[in-house]
């Protein structure tokens, strides 16, 4: 059975992601070390904490994640986990994983309430296995104050509107990321995680 390794940043709620992934038939491991990640069939970077603070925790495994990314290991970043795929963030200093070019930016607090909290819709920009069975305008659950702004428009899988249009999911080869929380998005979220599970066992 395929196993997903959830990388632990040391704060917040990993349990919901773990439970949701297990509902798709995957087994999960919570990892804090390089060794755990090296053996992973797939990696999930969950969505809790602060960009700069998380970089510290990520520093010892940065190279390992890069190696796994190049080797084709499926990687799913959720919320902050997705933001960490990029180079820099307006949330704080430090260089992210830089798997993709681009900056993580603040939502415009002048026009909308921030954090963007609640259910909003997906506008699908390109077909990807991660979103198989997900219809246009499906509602998913968001909790965030920042969003990724990729340099390369080809990686954008979905967009969402909140005060402005932003990238709400990306997909590029074996790297997937969602700004929303599939583990909190009801049936639609479970479908997305099931799709990820399918990608792993393929």
């Amino acid at each position: 059975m395929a196993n997903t390794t959830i990388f632990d940043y040391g704060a917040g709620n990993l349990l919901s992601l773990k439970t949701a992934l297990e509902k798709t038939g995957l087994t999960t491991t919570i990892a804090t070390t390089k060794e755990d990640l090296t053996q992973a069939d797939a990696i999930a970077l969950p969505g809790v904490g602060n960009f700069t603070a998380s970089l510290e925790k990520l520093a010892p495994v940065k190279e390992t994640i890069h190696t796994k990314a190049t080797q084709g290991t499926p990687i799913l970043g959720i919320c902050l986990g997705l933001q960490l795929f990029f180079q820099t963030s307006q949330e704080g200093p430090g260089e992210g994983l830089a798997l993709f070019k681009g900056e993580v930016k603040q939502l415009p607090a002048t026009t909308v309430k921030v954090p963007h909290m609640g259910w909003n819709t997906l506008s699908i920009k390109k077909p990807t296995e991660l979103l198989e069975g997900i219809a246009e305008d499906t509602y998913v659950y968001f909790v965030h104050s920042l969003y990724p702004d990729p340099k390369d428009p080809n990686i954008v899988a979905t967009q969402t509107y909140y005060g402005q249009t932003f990238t709400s999911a990306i997909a590029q080869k074996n790297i997937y990321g969602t700004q929303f929380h599939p583990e909190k998005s009801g049936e639609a979220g479970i479908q997305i995680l099931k799709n990820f599970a399918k990608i792993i066992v393929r």
Partner: protein
Amino acid sequence: MPLAKRIIPCLDVDHGQVVKCINFQNPKSAGDPTEMAKRYSDDGADELVFLDITASSEKRDIMRKYVQEVAKTINIPFTVGGGIRSVADARLILCSGADKVSINTAAVENPHLITELADAFGRQCVVCAIDVKRNPTTTATSANTKNTINTPKGPVWFEVVTYGGRKPTGIDALTWATEAEKLGAGEFLITSMDKDGTKDGYDLELTRNISEHVNVPIIASGGAGEPKHLYDVFTEGKADAALAASIFHYNNYPIPKVKNYLHKMGVTIRQQ
């Protein structure tokens, strides 16, 4: 499409059982937390709130147990509140699987707790619950020191009350909300003590004024008796989410029925 307005059933929990209180008194048993969470989630609830009123030395163990069960059962967000007084208390709840914690009296008595929680878990985890009572602005003193709001029943100011409504604090709710937002509150749960349990509709003036005062989401609570009340609080009350208990508990108005109504009335609602 814009962000959907959220419908949030609230479950008051006492010794691991859901109860319904009228005006914060006389608990009446309504069911098992996990079963009810599952039912609401299947019904299309956007989020759930558990408020724990257990007064017992085993409270932490009782809470951990059902929070874990609920987290395993549903995959929509849920908040847990009731007696969270420290980062350690909050950690226990969040590590058991809750997405947010709600703090009320503890925040009023120790505002710095909001900052500690926001620093530890991120502000999106921190729901600042405020229980509010209307007071007529009669004296010159209250007119000078409080935010006076004109209502059909005359000028009023909104007072923060703590300990489940038992203790008036003299604190202006609008001033407190502004301060709590600065300290790190990611969301407000505003309960009208005047309306709670009446099924008479939300306090729209209260909700609207707080919503216009702060730049984080507002959950309105207290007074929901029929779908029209939710419509009113989303439109006139400018709430981002509406919390209700009894109208859902006894299946008077199942969630899909309420959502259909709101959708027909032009409110942006997530429908399954």
